[in-house]
């Protein structure tokens, strides 16, 4: 049985949507961070699905790039989270709003 590409895309879209919603509504920095990972992986899924549908390797190569960037982002991001925790004694993103007009 071959699973149609659209199934993967719908799943990817749902995961991405969940990531977006979580990014907007979660207050904890860690959770926001995880939602970003969720969105990235949703996109990865879409890439893989298209790569399979078109029988081309380009999408798979892109997935590796995304994974690498996500790893780097995790490293930097977690460092920022640790500094935030040390300086603010809180992980609430609502309180991180100094960079404005």
């Amino acid at each position, binding site marked *: 049985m071959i699973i149609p590409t659209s199934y993967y895309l719908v799943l990817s879209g749902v995961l991405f949507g969940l990531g977006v919603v979580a990014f*907007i509504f979660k207050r904890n920095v860690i959770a926001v961070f995880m939602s970003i990972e969720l969105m990235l992986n949703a996109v990865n899924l879409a890439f893989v699905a298209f790569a399979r549908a078109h029988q081309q390797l380009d999408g798979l190569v892109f997935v590796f790039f995304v994974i690498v960037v996500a790893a780097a982002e995790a490293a930097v991001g977690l460092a920022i989270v640790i500094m935030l925790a040390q300086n603010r004694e809180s992980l609430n993103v609502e309180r991180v709003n100094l960079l*404005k*007009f």
Partner: protein
Amino acid sequence: MMMLNHMWIVLLLPILGAAINGLFGKKFPKAAVNSVAVGSVALAFAAVCELVREFWLLPAGSVPWVQSYYTWMVAGETTSHPFRINFALQLDQLSVIMLLTVSFVGLLIHIYSIGYMEHEGGYYRFFSYMNLFMFFMLTLVLGANLAVLFVGWEGVGLCSYLLIGFWFRKKSAADAGKKAFITTRLGDLFFMIGILLAFWTFGSLTYGDMFGYAAEKMQPDTLAHPGVLTWIAVLLFIGAIGKSAQLPLYVWLPDAMEGPTPVSALIHAATMVTAGVYMVARMNPIYSRAPIAMYLVAVVGGVTAFYAATIALTQTDIKKVLAYSTISQLGYMFLGCGVGAYAAGIFHLMTHAFFKGLLFLTAGSVIHAMSGEQDMTKMGGLRKKIPITYWTMLIATLAIAGIPGFAGFFSKDEILEAVKSGPHASLWLWAVGVAAAGLTSFYMFRLLFLTFFGKPRFDEHHAHVHESPLKMTIPLMILAFLSIFGGWVAAPKLAGGIDYFDRFLRPVFTRYAPAPAVPEVASASGLSPGMQLLFAVMGIPVILAVIGLLLAWWFYIKNPDAPRKLARKLHGVYVLLLNKYFVDEIYGALIVRPLLWLSTNVLWHVVDSGVIDGAVNGTAAVARESGGVTREMQSGNARSYASWVVAGAVGFTMLLLAFIGLAVR
């Protein structure tokens, strides 16, 4: 031929002097400033002399001698009428006369200034400006086209402004400088339009090209059919009215007396103000083809000569009398040019430079002796105390009054004779000119008697009256010599001979003259009955001059109370003249006040504050208000930014889908 090929040396010397004194003079001792300033003018005069000597040896065919040094401006080279102006200098008989007069009188006045300005601050500044003036004046008379002339024309105006306002801390001096600059600028506007019209008409601004074109390709204008030549002549003449202080733009010259006296002598008597006369004489081929403009020149000149003389009757400031006298004498020069006697006009220009320069310098010497007093009613009895000044001023007064034998007599009578019997004779203008001659004699002797005769009307213990030093009196004596003998070149004519001055200048005025060439003034009266007539005509101005002298003597020496009685009897006339016909007040009410009102209430409060500031402030306010609204977006909250990103992405996707849907359908 060295100087002829390098005429620019004449111009370089004074501007070098001006630059050296202007840039470094502040640190120089006074002697160094003197040497640079007087030395540069002296060298320029020497260069002029050498130039004239070489000019004398030139064959007649190469006059006018034109040298072009570089291309100054070019525009529209690919068109059929390119606008090309060279920095070119021209030497002909007219420039020779002007060069000699300007550089020599300028040199004498520079020497005089050493003594006069000795105790003044800004010594180097004064001489720097004076040298700069010499540069521009020489440029004006040497230029071979109207554009170079215009450079000199504006440059002397600038120097005039700077030197009138030399004592700029004094408000009246600063105001007088501005008045002179603005008033002459009004004339210069028309002058510039005239230049542009001349280029449009002739396709060139070079004298030779312009006159050649007018002579060969154009019909002379007539009284009934004025054309473009008349327009050019009139527009240029309006510039001359401003520069040479004729009616109605003369008002700046009396105020210009705020400047130091050597400045009044050099700029406002001998040279700059005569630039208008020079210009008219230079453009004679145009004027001779524009009879209406000629008549205008004659009428403005004649009326100004009389008008200014009447004002001079009542003035008590010694320099103001001389200022109005200058306006009046300039009127004579224009009168001469206006009736076609250009040579007579230039002759009077030259003799006037001598005797009026001398009058101003002697007046300066009197003021110097009186420690700054200029009011003649507070002088008197100075004859014995400052004898050199007295004798030289007496000579100058005799010259300006037209007493036979002195320079002014020859030139003034030549003009009056041309007005009476020349090709464009006009009897009423002759009458006006003769009346002005009588008035001239009266007010000049009034000045002389009030200053030097009678009882001293000042505190003798307080005022330390002293004769001026030699460096001031030697220029006086040289000018006095010229005021007597400077006119004698025309003397043989009186005996039926040749007027050498007229003959020398003749080529300039006949070369491009319209069909009936200017008849030789001298030859007409060569016969003995004609000579009789000539003497008869000349008699009237002379008789009037003597009457003026006697009246002045009767009023100011015999019966010192008489002027006051007469003033009381003719109170209205006296007040009118004393206040200079209220012209300054009328101009103030008609032009200055409305302009000020317009500037304050419309241009300032409405246009500037309202429109211009409003536009600028409005732009700023729009930016601020819109920024105030949109800056709320920058909350600093990462989640709200994410929301914007999502909203944007969703919106963009929808838009894309909508387009795709449209395209598919």
